């Protein structure tokens, strides 16, 4: 357990100390969210209608576009081979790296979601459902991103292919994430159905990802 904890801390501090740190992630969200009203017009009703979907898409893009970072640096300096051969199970190492990536990329968004919600005129009572659903959904999204990153670990500048590969897998999470958020916000008939399915998808992804990624890294070695 101790080496895994150390790895977790190492990954997070490496992420935040290289290239802008948490500011980079938050900056990305701000830029995309600010661009939207300029694109679709400043009408508040329209913004309120699309706000949940926009915030979900921004979360998805942030995780998709940073996927390459999960293994790239470690492969370059050779520490990935060490991590996978020495010490704990490769699957556990991958799970820890996945969670560290989640903390670095998804957590900042959850923290500034209240501000972004104000900018996009998020419907009243929509904040907590949104944060809760994003919390659950983003774990699954990070898991799938890990699979993509491990598959193309030995390819340079693989981000576009990772996007192509992972995009289809993101669609269920996006659909149920938005649907769960909407159901909880407006308290529809069965507000928890979509949330339960979203949780199931995230859990399945979290279980499959370490094994698939370990196989992919082995095949790439």
């Amino acid at each position, binding site marked *: 357990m101790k080496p895994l904890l150390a790895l977790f801390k190492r990954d997070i501090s490496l992420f935040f100390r290289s290239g802008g740190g948490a500011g980079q992630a938050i900056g990305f969200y701000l830029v995309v969210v600010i661009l939207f009203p300029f694109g679709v017009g400043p009408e508040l009703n329209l913004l309120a209608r699309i706000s949940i979907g926009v915030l979900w898409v921004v979360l998805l893009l942030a995780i998709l576009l940073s996927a390459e970072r999960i293994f790239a640096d470690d492969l370059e300096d050779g520490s990935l081979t060490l991590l996978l051969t020495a010490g704990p199970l490769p699957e556990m190492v991958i799970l820890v790296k996945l969670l560290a990536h989640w903390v670095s990329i998804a957590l900042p968004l959850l923290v500034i979601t209240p501000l972004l919600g104000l900018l996009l005129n998020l419907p009243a009572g929509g904040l907590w459902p949104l944060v809760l659903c994003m919390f659950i959904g983003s774990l699954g999204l990070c898991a799938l991103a890990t699979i993509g990153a491990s*598959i*193309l670990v030995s390819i340079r500048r693989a981000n576009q292919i990772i996007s192509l590969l992972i*995009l*289809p*897998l993101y669609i269920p999470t996006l*659909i149920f994430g938005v*649907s769960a958020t909407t159901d909880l916000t407006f308290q529809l008939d069965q507000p928890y159905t979509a949330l339960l399915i979203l949780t199931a*998808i995230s859990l399945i992804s979290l279980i499959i990802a370490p094994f698939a990624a370990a196989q*992919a890294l082995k*095949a790439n070695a």
Partner: protein
Amino acid sequence: MFGLANPTKFMRFSGILLPYLIITTLGLFGWGLYMVFTAPEDYLQGPLSRILYVHAPSAYLAQAAYVFMALANFTGYIWRHPLADMAAKNAAPIGATFALLTIITGMLWGKPAWGTWWVWDARLTSVFILFIMYLGYIAIWQVIEDQVKAARVATIVAAVGLINIPIIKFSVEWWNTLHQPASLTTSGSAIHPSMLTALLIMFAAFTFLFTSLLFISIRTEINRRRARAMEMRILQQNIAQTNLSTRAAINNQEPD
């Protein structure tokens, strides 16, 4: 089946089988198309019902090719079966083509039947996603140069895709019913027996087309690998000869 793992045996076997496959494919297409254009038209849709005979088999083939591809990849992964890897690699472009044809014929059917080229209908959307998955899979084979490595990585891509296809279908249907009511259902009109026969023949014709094209592609792949191996051998011989002659030249110079 496992005797076919040997490329030489496969070349001999497929060389004998291929002419029959091609003749069967052409015959089935001729028969099927004749049946299609003599079958009665659907009462509701008129001539439009003839689109079904190519749209449905394309959709079936696009999905079946993905399953075949994943199974071939598994076989290659577990039994280290190089021919299975080649089958998976070469099934992907064929499947992608038929996914694209499904989308195009669906759009051309949607325009007169629904009044718009594209609706985010659950089925159209699923096929569209399937097409993207094919593109991702083909990209893997192209970016990873070492074919053995590419085969192993492609298996993981195909496996993850295969697990996800039902989840994607389910979620797209959920999303679709959430956002818009079903556009049009033709389930009201029962299929006339002669229409069914024509449709079944077209299904068979598409399956044989897939098999023939796949056999030709695998043969091409084997030839490519053989040619590559020969080129490498020639290159090595050339290098060895150059080394010898340089050494001789150096030896000759030494007395100076």
